[in-house]
């Protein structure tokens, strides 16, 4: 059986090794015997973009889970998208570690609060978090919002709270961030492009 590059990826269970070998162009002439269904064969493939640098390498994410309502799919392997015109299947050492970002033990899982002066995190529900934050926002905005400047010009600005927007969040999240901050009257809005 001849395998093409794609099938070879699917036969190759080892994450980094698979990508590297394929990048070097070492494709096997003969495939291994199909003794059982390989993990990659059962995987769903999802296209995404490396979130690190702005080369914007295309990636393929492989996950298990059949998409049933209660089955949570989990990404177990990521490699470069061979169809992508910029990276043509390659990833650098940053992108090659992406699956470890998704599964980092330092991922945050629950809303938490650190109270004034406290030395610990305390869990709270989303509803509590939203309510408490909205109260802070309202109190500060109501107290410090400037409707007119000294010359009587309508300025409708709120300077005592600021917002630092992201560097890797999507345009769609960015647009909602713009709507959110500007409708509150915020001017202290900046993003990673500043630094």
């Amino acid at each position, binding site marked *: 059986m001849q395998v093409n590059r794609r099938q070879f990826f699917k036969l190759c269970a080892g994450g980094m090794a698979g990508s590297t070998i394929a990048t070097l162009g070492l494709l096997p002439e003969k495939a291994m015997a199909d003794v059982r269904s390989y993990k990659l064969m059962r995987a*769903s493939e999802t296209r*995404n*973009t490396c979130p*690190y*640098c*702005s*080369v*914007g390498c295309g990636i393929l994410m492989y996950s298990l*889970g059949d998409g049933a309502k209660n089955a*949570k799919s989990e*990404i177990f392997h990521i490699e470069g998208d061979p169809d992508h*015109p*910029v990276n043509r299947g390659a990833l*650098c050492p*940053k992108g090659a*570690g992406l699956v*470890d*970002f998704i599964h980092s033990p330092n*991922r945050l899982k629950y*809303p*938490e*609060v*650190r109270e004034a*002066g406290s030395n610990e995190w305390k869990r709270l529900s*989303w509803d509590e*978090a939203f309510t*408490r*934050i*909205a109260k*802070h*926002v*309202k109190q500060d905005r109501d107290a410090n919002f400037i409707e007119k400047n000294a010359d009587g*010009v309508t300025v*409708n*600005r709120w300077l*005592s*709270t*600021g*917002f*630092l927007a992201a*560097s*890797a*969040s*999507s*345009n*769609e*999240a960015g*647009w*909602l*961030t*713009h709507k959110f901050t*500007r409708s*509150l*009257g915020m001017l202290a809005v*900046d*993003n*990673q*492009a*500043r*630094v």
Partner: protein
Amino acid sequence: MTNHWVDIKNANLIVVMGGNAAEAHPVGFRWAIEAKTRNKAKLLVIDPRFTRTASVADFYAPIRTGTDITLLSGVIRYLLETGKYNKEYTLAYTNAALLVHPDFSFEDGLFSGYDADKRKYDKSTWAYQLDEKGMAKRDDTLSDPRCVINLLKQHVSRYTADVVANICGTPKEAFQAICEHLAETSAPDKTTSFLYALGWTQHSIGAQNIRTMAMIQLLLGNMGMAGGGINALRGHSNIQGLTDLGLLTTNLPGYMTMPSEKEPTLDSYLTKYTSKPLADGQMNYWQNYPKFFVSFMKSMWGDKATADNNWGYDLLPKWDKGYDVLQYFELMHQGKVNGYFCQGFNPVASFPNKNKIVESLSRLKFLVIMDPLTTETSTFWQNHGEQNDVKTADIKTEVFRLPTTCFAEEDGSIVNSGRWLQWHWKGAEGPGQALTDPQILAGIFLKLKAMYAKDGGTFPDAINSLSWAYGDPHEPKPEELAKELNGKALADLPDPKNPGQFLAKKGELLPGFALLQADGSTASGCWIFAGSWTQAGNQMARRDNSDPSGLGNTLGWAWAWPANRRILYNRASCKPDGTPWDKKRTLIKWNGEKWVGVDVPDFKADEPPGSAMGPFIMQAEGLGRLFALDKMAEGPFPEHYEPFETPLGTNPLHPKVISNPAARLFKGDKEQLGQHQQFPYAATTYRLTEHFHYWTKHARLNAIMQPEQFVEIGEELAREKGIAHGDLVKVSSKRGYIKAKAVVTKRIKALKVNGQLVHHVGVPIHWGFEGLTKKGFIANTLTPFVGDANTQTPEFKSFLVNVEKA
């Protein structure tokens, strides 16, 4: 980038300066190697360190950090004095022949109009001479001494090879070679591609570093050409997009400007920003400003934006000054800020003078963190010994930490440095209770809106007027938001050329920004994104990678702003008469009726060759600017100013004006600047191949590859200080210290500068007190709190330190 990653392969010369693509943008850098192997291109690297990019270069030259303008101005001098520049291009496509205001001058380091008390310029003389109609005067014979090019010649005449060697520490022969390599690409069929990144932006003269290079590209005739252009590699995956969307203090989407209090009415605002022509027959595309602005307002406020209320003009905040992050943290430090949101951003690690940042955050009432990972900003109140020595109990800031999904757990688009909007798909659910950013913003916003409805409060009008037409208000979907950004027709849009026909029917998604109107009949959140999601579907999700021309413009892959154009200013790839400068690089051509080609023409489609219209269609005179008019803070021509912390303690060109005279410096920060007697070494920060900023220290594979903090010093300095490879050293600046392992290397050499020896210290940035790596110090403990005069980007790349064995 004016061009894009794959296009780098078309270059004949690649200059990497102010960047280190092999390590910071490894896969993109493959296209530079492709140019070398397929196109016999030469790769030239100019950097204080012999980087991995340098290791595969044809030619490497060292340079002292912070002196790029000197070297590049020397190149301009060489090109102008030897006549090795593209004269036809320069005359036709730049403002070389235009006449400058008679009172414009430059003397002893200062341009005309300087106000020392305000540290600002009155820029009224930084202008053209105008005729009775208000159009710029020109002299095509170039004999008038006030021609831009003659003033430029005079300005750069000081930058001789000796001056370059003396200031930059770059050997004269190396500088000569750089000049000759660049000059070769003034031939119409040769191009240079400059690749740069934060090594140019993160200086108090960052914007002028880039400008000097852009001027070289104009003189060489490389703008608009395949294999040419100016190519900002950009630091993060979507800072391009988030900047496009106006997420900067005084910006609006699509590079519009937020109104200030000096424009109290819509009329005064539109009059200010609607561009008036400076030459006859120009496209002057910013004359369409009202269409972009009104369409943006319709997206923001929906039906609440009407002609009667000036499209909701009073609902937008009006600024008195910019609140960039340096300004804002200064206010926070003074105790004038109560609340702060950090969305996927880690200022404790990313901003200069980490101790000042931590002090500032400690003075907040509340801090909201939205992030997929544990950041040092979220735990700034924890004591981590020497690495974060705070008194937890004294810090009264309430900190909310909200878990967000990451890229793999959401749909959406991000913009790479080639301006490609690429759509991505969700592959799994986020961990635990993580929510997407839109869900979190919606959660807070809807709560707040309900509180205002119930209890009233200050100016709820803008909150109540914000358009929120999402199927599930608690979960605005990426498709809904993307369509809002693209924009739609709010009424039938009649076709002026075909009466009875319509360009778009009411409710249809717009095919592009050409249809935008200033009368409220269109909406578009970000005009440059118009065309990204049309009636034909999601253009950002397209995956046709075919490249019929072989030049790499895969027009069917994703979607590039503006209008799916891959190479900006591509009209300049043809001579004024319409023939290409280089047949092999034909991007567009005139077919007798209109411009067509392998790229989307960046020009008025039916404007025939030979007309007066210039290729730089966003400019009021249609020309590339060798003289920047009033667009820059510190001068219309670039000038060498030393970093705010200079190892020389002087500026050899003008000792009275040492550093950027227009840069902003807060009082407390001025006191925290070090002098070379105490802190003698020139330091610079940078990234490594294996890490991305402060994120990958949380990813196991990357943490294994580079587990421990280090700094790099040259062999001469190590000998002088008795430091051996692997020793623990203490690196200190006026603002604090870090401790790290010393890597003693041949790759950093002492440079002879202005009669003294300057040593560089290299400080990779990737460690902190959180993560899976060994704990480390925040590198930005060392860096100074001063920014570029135009962008306020901090001077991370040039500051002073001392080094001792710890």
